[in-house]
């Protein structure tokens, strides 16, 4: 009986993992050092390329490029590992994790998020702007 319950719990856990994977809620940028890039729908209706530099397992820089927007140095040109096309909300969810604590990376993350398509960027900006000290 105990074994059956255990198996049932394991099955439920696996199903949950597979389910979340199919929803794309687990987007992660690899922890290996280097530049990574992925593409999302942009707020201007075009495509946005998001770049992240990883050092010692953590992002140190975010940059974005799109049709009508560019949040990077105009000479910005890196050899980045392409992670492919990602849902905007997934990308936002990952970037959102680096808004706090406040620092240089937070500004990059906020700007990058704001250029993604959908309502989620505005919900996040609203949350930040409504915060009380």
């Amino acid at each position: 009986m105990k074994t059956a319950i255990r198996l049932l719990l394991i099955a439920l856990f696996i199903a949950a993992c597979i389910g979340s994977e199919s929803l794309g809620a687990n987007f992660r940028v690899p922890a290996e050092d280097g530049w990574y890039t992925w593409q999302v729908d942009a707020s201007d209706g075009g495509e946005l390329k998001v770049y992240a530099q990883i050092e010692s397992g953590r992002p140190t820089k975010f940059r974005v490029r799109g049709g009508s927007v560019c949040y990077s140095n105009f000479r910005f040109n890196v050899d980045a590992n392409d992670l492919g096309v990602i849902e905007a909300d997934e990308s936002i969810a990952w970037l959102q994790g680096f808004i706090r604590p406040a620092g240089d990376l937070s500004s990059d993350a906020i700007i990058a998020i704001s250029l993604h398509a959908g309502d989620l960027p505005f919900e996040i900006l609203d949350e930040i702007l409504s915060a009380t000290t």
Partner: protein
Amino acid sequence: MTIRPKLIIATVALLAMSASLAQTEVSDVEDPTEVLKIAALEALMMAPPKKALPLVIKVLDAENTDEVKERALFVLSQINLPEAQERLLDVARSGDPELSSEAVRMIGIGGNAEALAGLQDLYSSGDEDLREAVLEAYMIAGDVDAVHAIATNAADAEEFEAAVEMLGIMGAVDRLRALSGSSGYTEELIQALGIAGGDDVNATLMQIYRDAETADIREAALEGMMISGYDEGVLQLYKESTDVHEKRELLEMMSVMDSDLMMEVIDAALAGGA
């Protein structure tokens, strides 16, 4: 470079700095919540105006620091929607000691014609700080007509001086000449000409100096040359003068101007020629 031009350049630089409010310097603000709010406001600059406007207005209506609200005003100035400009005018009229002058300057940065027109009433009813902010807004927007109108209708000498000085900063030499039409070149106008600078102005300043009927006007013309950095003119006057007292004054002015031409005078003196 002389002291006065440095002051003017510093003022313009300060205005330019206030115009670049979109650049977030995290190190300038200590409160983490405030840092994030400023970054979020910066992000709104790239958002569609209709979506950004409600959030910016929310920031202005909520309890926020002046720093955050000033950034919000800048974002508002970049939103080319009637509601945004109206809201800027509302803040300008609010009488808030910190924000109303800033809102006025932001109207200048935004450059919206209707909002700029709304500043005329504010100038008439505002205190000294607000009047100064209105003049700065017109300068930022390059609205020479509005500043000229203020100079023409000035209620007192102080108001006139502030307006013509701004015309000088704006390089509106023709307007300064036009203002001299009724009462001649006053000290304020002469100094404003110096601020405007340029070859044409330098020639006028020389003429004013030579034709001056009072010591005050002569001094103002000399000061105008100092402001415009026209040391060649001062040297020319030095060479022309036969009055020892006047020569000393002109030499002192060249010294104040830190002019390299002083060497020419010294060489001539050593050679026994001057």
